[in-house]
Every structure is written in C-alpha cells, then in structure tokens.
C-alpha cells in the first residue's frame, strides 16, 4: 500500500500518472524528431565544416556528394540536404539548408530575398496542411527552426550586409549569429569584437535567438541572459583529428600549435553545440512554431479576411 496525500484528499494506491513521462519518451523516440537548420554567410566562412562538426557526421551539402562548386552562383540559391542520424535510440531527421551565393557578388542588394522567400514558403506549406479538412497525422515540418548566421571575423564591426540581413529576418526565423573562423583573432580581440557586435545589434533593435521577449520564466531568463552575454559564439570547425596530450581531438594544425575545436579555452564551439543541440533544440522548434509561424499565419489570415477549410480532392482553390 502506498498512501498519497494530495491537497487534503487521500489517494489509496499508486495510480502511475508519473509513467506518462516515460510513455511520451518512448513515443517520441519511435516517431523521431525533425530539425531544420539553415546556414547563411558568404563563401569560405566554414559553414559546411561547422555543420559537419556540430553533428559529428557528414551532413552538409558539400559532403552529400555534390561537386564542390567552382563558380559562385549569380543569385542566391537554396540547397537543402536531409540525413537521418541516430544517437542513443533517438532518430533525428536533420535537414541542412545551405544558401550559396549570399554576399559573394559585387552588388549584393536584396540578396536576402531568396532566403526570406524560402522561409515563408515553408510556413505556407505547413499552413496549407493545417487548414486541410483531412489532415495528415503528422504534418511534415520543413520550417526553418534555426538560422546560423556567419559573421566574418574582421575584428572591426558588423558589416552592412550583416545588419541588413539580420534586421530583415530576425522576425521570421531564429537567428543565431556566430563568429566564423575565430582562430584568426586573439582572445582579447575576440572579446572586443563581440562587445561591439552586441552593442551594434542592440542599438539597431535586432534580436537574435534566444530573444528576451520569449523568456518563459525567471529561470529561463537567467539561463538565457548568460547565453546572450556570450553570444555571438566564436567558433572554429574541423573534420580532422590530431593527437594532443594522448587524446584524439578535432582541430586545426598550424605551424605554431593545434587549435582544438572542443577546447573551451580555444574557442566556443562546445558552447554553441551544447546550446544548440543539448539544451535549446526543442525550444528552437517551439519558438518557430508558436511565435514565427503564428505571426505568419496571423498575417495571412488578416490579409485574406478569414480562412475556409479546403477540400483535398486535388482542387486547391484555396482562398489563402
């Protein structure tokens, strides 16, 4: 016998409500997760390498057997590649969306538009499914949950293109800015650069993820404050291993030493990985669904004066 006191009443026997957590876990493991991550930044900033390093697999477009692009595309292209990766019985369908051509031309006016269009198209796809009379059990989610924006490590300030992009897209997608190829800066230079970048973003009212306004409670706020104060993370990526102090580590070997990717004294890759994957992955999806998607949906509904469910017999005469 097991007596539970609950608000005055007495429950006799063990009900087993707490097992629901285990049931959920089992179900989730069976169904698996979807996660869609976009990388934006001009050519050569190590986007593909970083994504591969983050997920410890060859998941970027460049590794998917696509020929290494010899030419810079004239307009920004959107190229997505999906892989199913598994860890500890949990399956994740990871989609990496690459944006080759961004910022590479002499005239980069409006080069963010194809990206904005892609993000909205995924929202639209999801919305159409949601609004169907007979809906799929699980709507395939291609919405971009997170956009990693690669800042060039100039050591001075943000570039104009960086500001333009983040200004325009921070309201439709979670932007996580990172300082790429951070092994070009000393620790001091890095700190100064980060401070300047944060100040510039603040002055322009640009909010990167995790956005202050979406902090759920004090605990969240305190955790996220700490993270916001360290961002943008200064990262280094690598797919090569070297022997350091009898350990095999991922790193970059130069004439004056080995930069260890996962060494927190060298760069902030480990922090980024923990933040992105180990603590905030689910939150990124939730903010995308509850905030960015809802914003899009509300706008669409307003624009069309109402929403009528449509039939799925092929005639998509939606009044959307």
């Amino acid at each position, binding site marked *: 016998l097991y007596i539970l006191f609950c608000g005055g009443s007495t429950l006799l026997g063990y009900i087993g409500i707490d097992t629901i957590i285990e049931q959920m876990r089992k179900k989730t493991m069976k169904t698996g997760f979807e996660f869609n991550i976009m990388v934006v930044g001009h050519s050569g900033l190590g986007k593909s390498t970083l994504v591969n390093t983050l997920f410890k697999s060859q998941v970027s477009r460049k590794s998917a057997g696509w020929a290494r692009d010899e030419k810079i595309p004239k307009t920004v292209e959107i190229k997505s590649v999906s892989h199913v990766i598994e860890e500890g019985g949990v399956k994740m369908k990871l989609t990496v969306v690459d944006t080759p051509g961004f910022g590479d031309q002499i005239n980069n006016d409006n080069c963010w538009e194809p990206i904005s269009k892609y993000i909205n198209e995924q929202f639209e796809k999801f919305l159409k499914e949601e609004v169907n009379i007979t809906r799929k059990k699980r709507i395939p989610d291609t919405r971009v949950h997170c956009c990693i924006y690669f800042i060039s490590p100039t050591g001075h300030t943000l570039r104009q293109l960086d500001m333009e992009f983040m200004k325009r897209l921070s309201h439709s997608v979670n932007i996580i800015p990172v300082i790429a190829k951070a*092994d070009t800066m000393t620790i001091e230079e890095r700190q100064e650069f980060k401070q300047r970048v944060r100040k510039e973003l603040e002055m322009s009212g640009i909010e990167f993820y995790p956005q202050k306004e979406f902090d759920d409670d004090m605990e969240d706020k305190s955790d996220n404050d700490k993270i916001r104060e360290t961002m943008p993370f200064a990262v280094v990526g690598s797919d090569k291993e070297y022997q350091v102090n009898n350990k095999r580590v991922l790193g970059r070997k*130069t004439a004056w030493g080995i930069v260890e990717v996962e060494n927190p004294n060298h760069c902030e890759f480990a922090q980024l990985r923990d933040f992105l994957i180990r603590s905030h992955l689910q939150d990124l999806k939730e903010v995308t669904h509850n905030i960015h998607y809802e914003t899009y949906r509300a706008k669409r509904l307003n624009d069309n004066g109402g929403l009528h469910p449509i039939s799925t017999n092929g005639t998509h005469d939606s009044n959307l």
Partner: protein
Amino acid sequence: YISNLQFLSMKIKPEKQYVGFATLPNQVHRKSVKKGFDFTLMVAGESGMGKSTLVNSLFLTDLYKDRKLLNAEERINQTVEIIKHTVDIEEKGVKLKLTIVDTPGFGDAVNNNECWKPITDYIDQQFEQYFRDESGLNRKNIQDNRVHCCLYFIPPFGHGLRPVDVEFMKALHEKVNIIPLIAKADCLTPNEIKKLKDRIREEIDKFGIKVYQFPECDSDEDEEFKQLDKELKECTPFAVIGSNTVVEARGQRVRGRLYPWGIVEVENQSHCDFVKLRNMLIRSHMHDLKDVTCDVHYENYRAQCIQEMTSKLAQDNRMESPIPILPLSTPDVDTEKLIKMKDEEVCKDVI
C-alpha cells in the same frame, strides 16, 4: 691652353689609363642620399583585413594611433575615401619620405558596384598632376605623388579570388603595380595556404590580370641569389600577418600574436611571408617599383593623354596646348607610332 691640358692628362695618367668615371655610381649615391627618397604606397581591401597593422609592421611605425572605427550604421552612406598619411623615416643616414594612401570604405557596402572608381580616379589625378608639372616651366621642384605600388589584400576566408577582387585588379593593373597579398594568414594551415595560393595564381592567369612581376635575375648573378629569387617568385601571392604588439617567443621579444594554442611570430619565415614581402618591397624592389611606375604606367597614361589631346586638337583646330606641338606632318601617325612603341614596352616588361 691645349698643351696645358695635355700636360695635365699626361701627369695624371697612371699606367692603367684610369679615367675615373667608375666613381659615378658613388656620386649618384651620395647625391641621392642627400636628396632623400620618396615612395608612395597604396593599400586596398575591405575593412578588417589587417591593412593598417601590416603597414605599421612593415615600416615600424604607428600611423593609425587615433583612428576611430565607424560602426555599421555610421557607415551606411559612406563612400570610398582616399586618405594619405605621410611619414619621414631615416635609417643609417638615408631619408625616406613615405606616403601611405589608404582607401577606407572599399568593398564594405552591400552594393559595391564600381567601388574602385575613386581609387582609379585618384591614381589618374596624380598622373595628370605630374604630366602638367612635367610640361610646365618650373620643373625644379616637381612633387612626385604618383602611386608606386598598391598592396591588395585578399581575404583568407574564401576559396580564391572573389568577383570584387577580379574587377578591382583589372581596373587597376594598367595604372599601378599591384601586389596581391593573402591577408590574416594565421587562420590558415600550411596546406590551405598552398591551395589558396595556387588557386589565386591560376585565377590571375585566367582573368588576364597583370600583377607586378619581379624583374628577371641578371644572368651573371650567383646561383644562391638566383635560387632565392626563384623561391620568392614561387611564393606569391604572399601570405602575410601583421602585428602591433610585441610578445615573448622563444626567449626573445618579437612582433607577434598570442593565441591560447601558440604564438605567431610575424618575422618567422615558417609562419608567414611577411619577411619576404618586406625584403621585396623595401630592400630589393623599391626602386624597380618606382621605375615601372614611371616607365610603364605613367608613360601609358601620358601617351593616352597626348593621343586624346591631339585628336581633340585635330577636331577643334585650336592651337592652345600645354605641350608645344612640333610641326608634325601627320600627327596621328606619329602618335600612333609612339603608342605602338609603348605598347611593346609594356608587353615586354609585363610578361
């Protein structure tokens, strides 16, 4: 009188009939040292490529002490500027008046169409000024503000030349000696540097960009010199690192950068090509850079100018001109000959 001279020369004549003009180079040297030298160096490339740091490292100066960095909002409407810093350097009795021409704003905007125009305009203006001075009446104190060399900083982050790099170099390669550099090379592994250099050299060829070529070694130089010269040429574009700070490395105080994983020494040849660049720019080829500027780039400009003027004159029928036009029977033919000659010179010097 004549017999006196004969007497004199007979008296002075030693066994080897030594006249004494072998001392001319020394005389030239002494006069030059007295007069001093001048050199104008332009630096171009986007913000944050380490241009100022490299200039300070090359000339052991601190030219940018009070510089204020603009933030992105302030830079929105900024156009490319041309800023000159002049510094007088003296070393072992030799004076150098060094002018650094900076080009802030280049390549920093969202739309960088023709962002090199202020730079080509500046170079042309200096040529034009010199042209006028040269054709003028008081030629004793001509100021030579022509740009002798342009260091172009290519970012190390890319996979080779970007469109803006190609366009910039093509707009300038017939006006100034371009020396392309790989900036901030300390973020690249030795392998990556080699790949990038190969790629850049390939693309320079492919796009027909005429960067500054080191003159051929004299055939009578010794083997060691020839070998060094060969190595220098195969090392381009130089991968450079600069530093404004002194660090302690291997028991010495050197210019360098301190990272958690090691110390980069600017003057260590196994770390970067800074020493090669400095030696080439200052210690061996400074004079040649000036010569090529005067003999090739300036002469091209001048020939073009004259052709334009004479064709304009033929149209206008005016007799006013800053240059005394000799009575030419068919001015066009002669000018064309001049241009053809200069073209051949250019081809010869630039290959």
